[in-house]
């Protein structure tokens, strides 16, 4: 029977319902009775019933546990390591996904590595290559499970086909109340491991190298704090290879006195990575004390953290012992060396002296010698130092014995000579380990030798330098010495002579004469002297032979000259006298032995003295030498005689018998007799007075030429420039010395073509004038007005040309400036005239337009038209105002103006006008003077300049406004047309714009000249500025460089000191009328009626006149008259000014207001209004008219 059958059985349903009810009630009742503290009840027949509350709780609890289990599994599955949980017997209880994947990938079937399998069995079943690893793993697992080790770790290869793979296996125990067992973790460490393998290989190599060098290695992984020692380290410490200790244990090996030090070094290395390398002592496990060298360094991971400290370790006890032995042996050597009386020293293989013995210190008298710095050198004689250093360096380099002598400075500062030798000491391999040296006091021997050498040299030099020939032959007649002069006279080189006899060298003639003489000298033991003539050489020789112990010394010299001179003299004596008589000069012959002087007849011819006058004594000649020259001449003669000069020459003044002074050139020849004694002086006096004068004249002329400012140059056809005066030096910059001999063409011309044409013209026509462009030494250009003339020599052939070049460079510039100023002046007059007439028209148009606007109302269409008309007329008025400004025909009201203040006041306006793209900088001069200018015009000029600057800087730039006090000196004025020297206040406006070409600059001030696009500029801006400044008595400078920018400088006249400064421009007053009577004088009917209408509309009574005469009628009448308003320029014989004068003679207090399209001298003097004169500039607006009339009326009352 099934449950559903039971349920469906008829009649059972009710009973079941009742039983359930009973069950429920029972549970409720039990709960009540036990206060809910019972979970289950048990029936006596056995079964227990869990009560409802407990069931609910358990259901919820199981669900939570299932959930937690699922979460744990998910987490475990996400771990990349392969995890397997083993129970106490090693059976796999659970694995994570990574484990399963690995198992699948490695072809392990489910039962091999899956839950339920014994892991130990799996390991034990492994065969082949991996069996060793597997059994090691199994052993590890067993050890962990049995509690023998807290954990087990191993690394093993598990290579996949074609790919190396490394795993780390970790086994940790798991002990929880409900599970005892272990967790097995396998992790793929392939990436890490390959690096480690490489490292292992390197470490292996190091280990091998270390073994060879007996250097050990150690390392400490800072995590593990275990020190790993190489076998060598273990050996040094006398412990078993493979021993591993803690850091503390390792440190404990060091001898107690070293522990603190090694600990400190190790800590610093571990903490900061400071490496160390030190020599310390350890006490080995067997109690041996050993010197070790220990090196430590930190190893960092990729993040820079110190993860390991490792190092090297070496037993250096032997080395230390050897060092100690060396120290002992060195000490012994030094004691020995110090006991030596002579100097001894040692040096290191590189030549550094490291020891000198006591004797050295005793010699130099100090022990303060820093040997290693080579200070011992300072005791050497300065002349010896370099040589010693060179020899010593060479010896050290080549490793050969060393020997040198030098002077050493002793205590007292005296130097003594020492002979120094040194020998290298080599070790068994042949390497130099030391140099040992000694120094012998060599002074005595050296000084003697030195003295001998010096004497020998001096003797040799003496022999060489004597002008006589000298040779020495020994007793076998062989040449042993031949001096230079002897070489020359014998005509054989020394090498050919030495060792041979004179009889082998001399020819038969010489031998015939000389041999008997020499033999006689030797035989008789006395000197022999002879003169002989050598026929072949045609020479006379004076020979002296001195016998000596060595043999024979022979002095000889060439006396041919003397012999021939004497002979010639004797022969020509008579001839000479005859000639002397014939010559124009005075010939004299002075016998120095007797003092007698012979004079030729010239003495009388030239100087008027007869032979009787002068006698035969030399003093008669000296008497007539000009007293101022006498001493000098006598001295020069005495000196010539003293020196045995062959001739003498002097210039002096000689007094003619008639008392006149003549310029003399005197030349004399000194003649020796056969004994070589001075015998005679023969000479001649020439009168050079004329020549002197000519020279003087030439010098004076040259000085004159030098005075000329022009360049005066002579160009010879053979040899370039032959004359170059100071003017040429000045103009061209080349000095006379630089220019003489140079080619004029190369020196002065960039383009030689004009020069060649000029040259051809000179050759053809004999002279040439023209203008030439030339070049100065500094490369700058110079223009000259040239005036060239052909020069001829004595035969009339052309030999060159004379060039007189005038520098006109500056003049040309000035001329150009003047031309420009004149052109502007002309244009100005023209525009001024046009503007005047135009202003009359504009006055009417402007006035009527204003009235129309008022009558029609600006809002009505006709009124708007009228307003447009007024605007146009106003623009026209602005243009004419500029034209007048340029033409310097505007009335100016100059006042002292502080430019700095004005710049400050206009700053805001400028910034607004120029826009943000232009940066404005102002440089305000300190202590700036006031300028005397018309303030509104100046502001207008500044604005114009700034606008020009802005337009030149299309894409923005920097504008600089600068003020300064300036003194224009004569030099500046000389270079600029139309400027007066004096004090000015400068206002400069500079931009960083496009700049202008020279051509544009030259036309910049012309009216209607503009570089701006059509419709952009009136071409009047700079013209206005120019006219205004010129009219104000100032000067405008323009400087521009294409692509760099432009600077325009206004030089404004300085206001007289004490002049009041102008106050700011006053604001325009409101239109104010009146009832006074005004006389309007105007020749233009149109204008006259217009003005009258306007004044009437302002409430005034108006009288009109069309010329001066008519006006005066009104003035003379007794009608009321408050203001005379007159045009300045009027036809009919009387201008405004004259009318005003005439009117004031009748009514002295009658105020006058002038009006004009432009002004003339009638009211404006030098461009400025006379004080007290009122002027209304045409065209004017109604408001201006009203204001001016009121001002005149108020001034009259005040």
């Amino acid at each position, binding site marked *: 029977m099934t449950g559903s059958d039971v349920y469906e059985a008829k009649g059972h349903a009710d009973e079941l319902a009742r039983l359930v009810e009973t069950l429920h009630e029972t549970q409720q009742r039990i709960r009540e009775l036990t206060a809910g503290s019972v979970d289950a009840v048990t029936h006596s027949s056995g079964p227990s019933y869990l009560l409802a509350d*407990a069931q609910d709780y358990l259901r919820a609890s199981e669900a939570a546990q299932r959930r937690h289990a699922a979460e744990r599994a998910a987490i475990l599955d996400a771990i990349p390591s392969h995890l397997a949980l083993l129970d106490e017997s090693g059976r796999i209880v659970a694995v994570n996904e990574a484990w399963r994947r690995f198992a699948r990938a490695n072809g392990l079937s489910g039962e091999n590595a899956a839950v339920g399998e014994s892991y130990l069995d799996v390991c034990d079943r492994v065969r082949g290559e991996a069996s060793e690893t597997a059994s090691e793993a199994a052993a590890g697992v067993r050890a962990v499970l049995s509690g023998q080790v807290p954990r087990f770790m191993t690394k093993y290869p598990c290579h996949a086909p074609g790919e190396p793979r490394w795993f780390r296996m970790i086994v940790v125990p798991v002990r929880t109340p409900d599970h005892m067992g272990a967790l097995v973790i396998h992790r793929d460490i392939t990436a890490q491991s390959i690096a480690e393998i490489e490292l292992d290989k390197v470490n292996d190599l190091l280990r091998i190298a270390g073994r060879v060098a007996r250097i050990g290695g150690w390392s400490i992984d800072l995590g593990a704090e275990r020190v790993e020692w190489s076998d060598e380290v273990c050996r040094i410490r006398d412990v078993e290879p493979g021993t591993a200790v803690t850091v503390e244990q390792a440190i404990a090996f060091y001898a107690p006195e070293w522990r603190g030090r090694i600990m400190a070094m190790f800590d610093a290395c571990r903490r900061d990575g400071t490496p160390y390398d030190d020599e310390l002592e350890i006490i080995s496990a067997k109690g041996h004390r050993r010197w070790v060298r220990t090196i430590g360094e930190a190893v960092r991971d990729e993040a820079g953290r110190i993860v390991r400290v490792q190092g090297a370790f070496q037993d250096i006890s032997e080395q230390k012992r050897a060092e100690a032995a060396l120290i002992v042996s060195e000490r012994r050597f030094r004691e020995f060396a110090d006991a030596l009386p002579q100097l001894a020293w040692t040096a290191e293989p590189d030549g550094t002296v490291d020891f000198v013995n006591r004797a050295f210190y005793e010699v130099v008298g100090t022990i303060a010698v820093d040997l290693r710095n080579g200070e011992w050198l300072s005791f050497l004689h300065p002349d010896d130092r370099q040589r010693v250093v060179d020899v010593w360096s060479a010896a050290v380099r080549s490793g050969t014995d060393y020997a040198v002598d030098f002077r050493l400075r002793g205590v007292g500062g005296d130097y003594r000579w020492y002979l120094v030798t040194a020998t290298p000491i080599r070790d068994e391999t042949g390497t130099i380990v030391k140099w040992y040296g000694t120094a012998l006091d060599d002074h005595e021997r050296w000084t003697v030798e030195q003295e001998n050498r010096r004497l020998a040299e001096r003797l040799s030099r003496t022999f060489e330098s004597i002008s006589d020939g000298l040779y020495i032959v020994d007793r076998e007649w062989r040449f042993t010495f031949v001096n230079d002069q002897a070489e020359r006279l014998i005509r054989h080189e020394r090498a050919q002579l030495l060792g041979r006899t004179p009889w082998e060298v001399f020819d038969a003639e010489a031998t015939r004469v000389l041999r008997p003489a020499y033999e006689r000298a030797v035989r008789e033991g006395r000197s022999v002297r002879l003169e002989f003539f050598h026929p072949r050489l045609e020479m006379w020789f004076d020979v002296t032979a001195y016998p000596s112990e060595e043999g024979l010394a022979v002095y000889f010299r060439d006396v041919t000259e003397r012999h021939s001179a004497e002979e010639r003299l004797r022969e020509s004596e008579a001839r000479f006298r005859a000639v002397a008589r014939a010559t124009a000069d005075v010939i004299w012959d002075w016998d120095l032995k007797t003092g007698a002087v012979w004079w030729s007849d010239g003495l009388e011819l030239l100087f008027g003295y007869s032979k009787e006058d002068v006698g035969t004594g030399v003093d008669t000649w000296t008497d007539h030498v000009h007293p101022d020259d006498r001493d000098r001449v006598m001295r020069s003669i005495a000196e010539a005689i003293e020196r045995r000069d062959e001739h003498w020459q002097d210039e002096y003044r000689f007094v003619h018998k008639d008392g006149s002074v003549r310029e003399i050139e005197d030349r004399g020849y000194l003649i020796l007799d056969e004994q070589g004694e001075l015998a005679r002086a023969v000479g001649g006096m020439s009168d050079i007075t004329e020549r002197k004068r000519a020279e003087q004249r030439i010098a004076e002329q040259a000085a004159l030429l030098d005075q000329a400012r022009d360049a005066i140059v002579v160009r010879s056809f053979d040899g370039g420039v032959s004359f170059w005066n100071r003017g040429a030096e000045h103009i061209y910059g080349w000095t006379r010395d630089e220019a003489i001999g140079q080619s004029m063409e190369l020196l002065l011309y960039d383009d030689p073509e004009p020069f060649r044409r000029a040259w051809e013209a000179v050759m053809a026509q004999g002279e040439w004038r023209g203008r030439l462009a030339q070049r100065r030494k500094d490369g700058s250009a110079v223009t000259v007005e040239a005036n060239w003339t052909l020069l001829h020599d004595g035969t009339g052939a052309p030999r060159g040309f004379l060039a007189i070049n005038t520098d006109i460079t500056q003049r040309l510039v000035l001329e150009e400036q003047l031309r420009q100023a004149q052109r502007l002046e002309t244009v100005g007059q023209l525009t001024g005239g046009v503007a005047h007439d135009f202003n009359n028209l504009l006055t009417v148009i402007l006035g009527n337009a204003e009235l129309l606007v008022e009558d029609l109302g600006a809002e009505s269409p006709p009124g708007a038209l009228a307003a447009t008309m007024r605007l146009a007329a106003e623009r026209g008025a602005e243009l004419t105002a500029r034209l007048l400004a340029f033409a310097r025909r505007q009335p100016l009201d100059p006042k002292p103006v502080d430019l700095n203040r004005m710049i400050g006041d206009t700053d805001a306006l400028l910034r607004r006008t120029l826009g943000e793209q232009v940066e404005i900088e102002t440089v305000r001069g300190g202590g700036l003077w006031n300028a005397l200018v018309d303030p509104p015009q100046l502001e207008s000029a500044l604005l114009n300049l700034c606008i020009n600057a802005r337009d030149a800087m299309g894409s923005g730039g920097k504008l600089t406004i600068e003020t300064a006090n300036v003194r224009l000196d004569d030099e500046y004025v000389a270079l600029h047309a139309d400027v007066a020297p004096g004090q000015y206040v400068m206002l400069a406006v500079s931009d960083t714009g496009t700049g202008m070409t020279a051509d544009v600059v030259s036309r910049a001030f012309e009216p209607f000249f503009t570089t701006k696009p059509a419709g952009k500029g009136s071409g009047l801006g700079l013209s206005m500025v120019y006219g205004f400044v010129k009219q104000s008595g100032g000067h405008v400078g323009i400087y521009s460089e294409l692509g760099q920018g432009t600077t325009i400088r206004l030089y404004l006249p300085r206001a007289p000191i004490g002049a009041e400064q102008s106050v700011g421009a006053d604001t325009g007053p409101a239109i104010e009328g009146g009832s006074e009577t005004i006389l309007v004088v105007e020749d233009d009917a149109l204008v006259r009626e217009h003005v009258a209408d306007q004044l009437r509309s302002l409430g005034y009574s108006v009288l009109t006149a069309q010329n001066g005469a008519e006006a005066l009628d009104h003035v003379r009448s007794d009608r009321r008259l408050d203001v005379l308003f007159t045009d300045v320029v009027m036809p009919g014989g009387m201008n405004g000014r004259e009318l005003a004068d005439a009117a004031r003679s009748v009514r002295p207090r009658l105020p006058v207001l002038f009006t004009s399209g432009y002004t003339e001298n009638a009211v404006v003097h030098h461009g400025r209004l006379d004080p007290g004169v009122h002027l209304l500039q045409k065209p004017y607006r109604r408001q201006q008219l009203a204001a001016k009339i009121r001002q005149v009326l108020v001034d009259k009352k005040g």
Partner: protein
Amino acid sequence: MNEEATLLCRLYIAGDSPNSRRALANLRELCRRAAPNGHHIEIVDIFADPLRALSDGVMLAPQLLVISKGSVRIVGDLSDETVVLAALGSEVRRS
């Protein structure tokens, strides 16, 4: 150590159900206090060993039998400290 010195308890529980869990925790705590020198707690799950419960006449779980005191019985989660300590031994009662 003789028999009298050791406190012997047997706690019947109904699996992991809530009163049973509390009863076990309370009993451990109170035994530690009442008999710090020695006690033994036997835990019997009525679902695991219903015959044992029947032999001890245990019809309700949790239920404590203090064997050493002549089988004193306490039913419930043993949260009434005074009652349980009294059952475990009057000598450790504190007023």
